[in-house]
């Protein structure tokens, strides 16, 4: 089976001070139909820019410099703006962190939803409205018929995110890119939204790229995980393998720095230093300035070691499982 999405050596650059800074640096991954990929990283790791690159939403002067984004066989990196427009919202949809920014504050929810439908399909107004109402009901919004006439500010944060998800799912896309969709929400609301999102995408067979900094969410949601640092994927593989026996020192440090029931009262393992800015990224392995295992070899760029589906970029990987 060929993958639904196959990203190969994607490079997205932002020109600054006379040179191109690589926000996404030779990133390769693939997503199968119906699969959930967790794309994990801290701020500045390039995870969101990767998502925007897939959608063709990188703002100028930023641009995709090289690489391929094969979606169902077509290379999106070379697709025309018209082709991207017809794809976006219909076959690939995105859910953002802040629904207040994606929803138009002066249009009723119903208008915004039917607008999305009319953009890609020739359907009558009553039918569009009925579909919008059903979509709202699906994401658990009470009295959807009345809520179609409400404005975004009349919804709570959690309800607004549900609306954004309902819009993303309107055309039953093949792929949804969810960029930190629950980060701004309370834990109980977060769980509600994830559970509905999970049920809907499973039922429709939608593939998901879930972009987040939260390893705990990804651990229960994703089939596979890709960990980003300094614009590169440093480790990827099936979720259980990567989380129980992480090979890359960064993945390991990240997992161990999350407070857990076992760490009560004890000191947390910490990664020394801070993420370097794009302009000052070390040559070779980007993590070597913070890595305790780094030596002279790390000044070279590490390749991808391991199998096709589970690999890491480190010259000195950990072999033992995490305790």
């Amino acid at each position, binding site marked *: 089976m060929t993958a639904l999405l196959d990203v190969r050596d994607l490079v997205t650059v932002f020109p600054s001070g006379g040179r191109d800074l690589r926000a996404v640096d030779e990133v390769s991954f693939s997503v199968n139909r119906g699969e959930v990929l967790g794309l994990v990283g801290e701020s500045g790791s390039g995870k969101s820019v990767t998502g925007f690159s897939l959608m063709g939403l990188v703002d100028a002067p930023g641009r995709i410099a090289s690489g391929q984004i094969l979606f169902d066989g077509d290379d999106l990196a070379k697709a025309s703006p018209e082709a991207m427009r017809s794809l976006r919202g219909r076959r690939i949809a995105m859910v953002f962190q802040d629904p207040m920014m994606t929803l138009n504050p002066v249009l009723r929810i119903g208008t915004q939803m039917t607008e999305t439908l009319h953009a890609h399909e020739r359907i009558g107004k009553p039918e569009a409205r009925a579909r919008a109402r059903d979509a709202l009901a699906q994401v658990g919004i009470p009295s959807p018929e009345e809520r179609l006439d409400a404005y975004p500010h009349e919804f709570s944060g959690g309800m607004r995110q549900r609306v954004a998800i309902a819009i993303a799912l309107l055309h039953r896309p093949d792929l949804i890119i969810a960029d930190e969709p629950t980060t701004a929400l309370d834990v109980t609301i977060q769980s509600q939204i994830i559970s509905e999102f999970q049920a809907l995408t499973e039922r429709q067979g939608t593939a998901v790229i879930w972009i987040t900094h939260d390893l705990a969410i990804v651990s229960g949601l994703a089939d596979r995980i890709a960990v980003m640092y300094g614009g590169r994927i440093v480790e990827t593989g099936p979720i259980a393998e990567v989380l129980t026996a992480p090979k890359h020192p960064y993945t390991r440090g990240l997992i161990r720095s999350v407070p857990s029931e076992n760490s009560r009262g004890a000191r947390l*393992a910490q990664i020394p230093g*801070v993420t370097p800015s794009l302009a000052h990224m070390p040559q070779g392995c980007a993590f070597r300035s913070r890595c305790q295992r780094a030596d002279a070899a790390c000044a070279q760029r590490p390749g991808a070691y391991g199998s096709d589906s589970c690999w890491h970029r480190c010259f000195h990987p950990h072999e033992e499982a995490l305790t």
Partner: protein
Amino acid sequence: MTLLSLEGITRRFGSTPDLAARIAIRLGAAKPPPVVQALDGVSLDIAEGEVVGLVGESGCGKSTLGRIAAGILPASEGTIRWKGRDRATLQGRARRDAELAAQMIFQNPMAALNPRMNVEALVAEAPQIHGMISGGKGAYVDDYLRKAGFDPEMKRRYPHQFSGGQRARANIARALAVQPEFLVCDESVAALDVSIQAQILNLFMDLREQLGLTYLFVSHDLGVVEHISDRVAIMYLGRIVEEAPVAEVFARPNHPYTQQLLAEVPRIRPGKRRFSAVKGELPSPLNPPKGCHFHPRCAFATERCRIEVPKMRQIAPGHRSACHLNDVA
């Protein structure tokens, strides 16, 4: 020994109507302005050297309680005792000392640090005004910057030149510089990346040991609270619903809200699972439900829960909970 004791704290927010509006209300021509009951008779004791975690969802009043404990917001009703003495009755030097001894560390250091002052000036400002620095300020500031893990070499720089983690450290140094005994941390690590968050949490633990600090740690992140606290208080819509030592509350949560909240603690456990959740949303504090505030979302609610406000009762040593279900057993 109890360092800070909050007793029956109530806090209301709302506009005070002017004369014309008051007349209009009296004549029935206008409705009285809405009042938000942010805190409703909250009591909490904090012992010396203790770390108390205050947990709840947005809008439950945890930040308001934190601000009242830190002394930067007055309570509408209730008594606050500092080392056994009513803080409202303190005068002169005793009052100043009590106020300086309680400091607050805010969520967003960029908003808490004046962008036009460099780090040295920011840290030195308060202790200079209060006459705590004798001689040059340089050594004094360096000392506190080092305590917070901030390189004193960089103290001439301005807040915007630092990363989030360094700003958090500068902010901590600023609070420490007036030699407090009690720190209120209001979501102090919420905005930080995981790897930086671990550094700052370790710093809080180190400082507690070195300086014998007491913390009130306000957070929505149960993982963080579980890690750092000795005791946890759980708030729902302006009331504390449960309070217990941290191990006890995570092992034997009593209140239905606590039970549901703890079920949602995100943990790193590989393997797909079904996410499920508390039904419904947090009601508006403008118009809270009668009786137990949690009853509309509670699976065990009875008729009594809709009418009568449950009282805080001891259910095990050091473990208090406000739920009618405890009366049946």
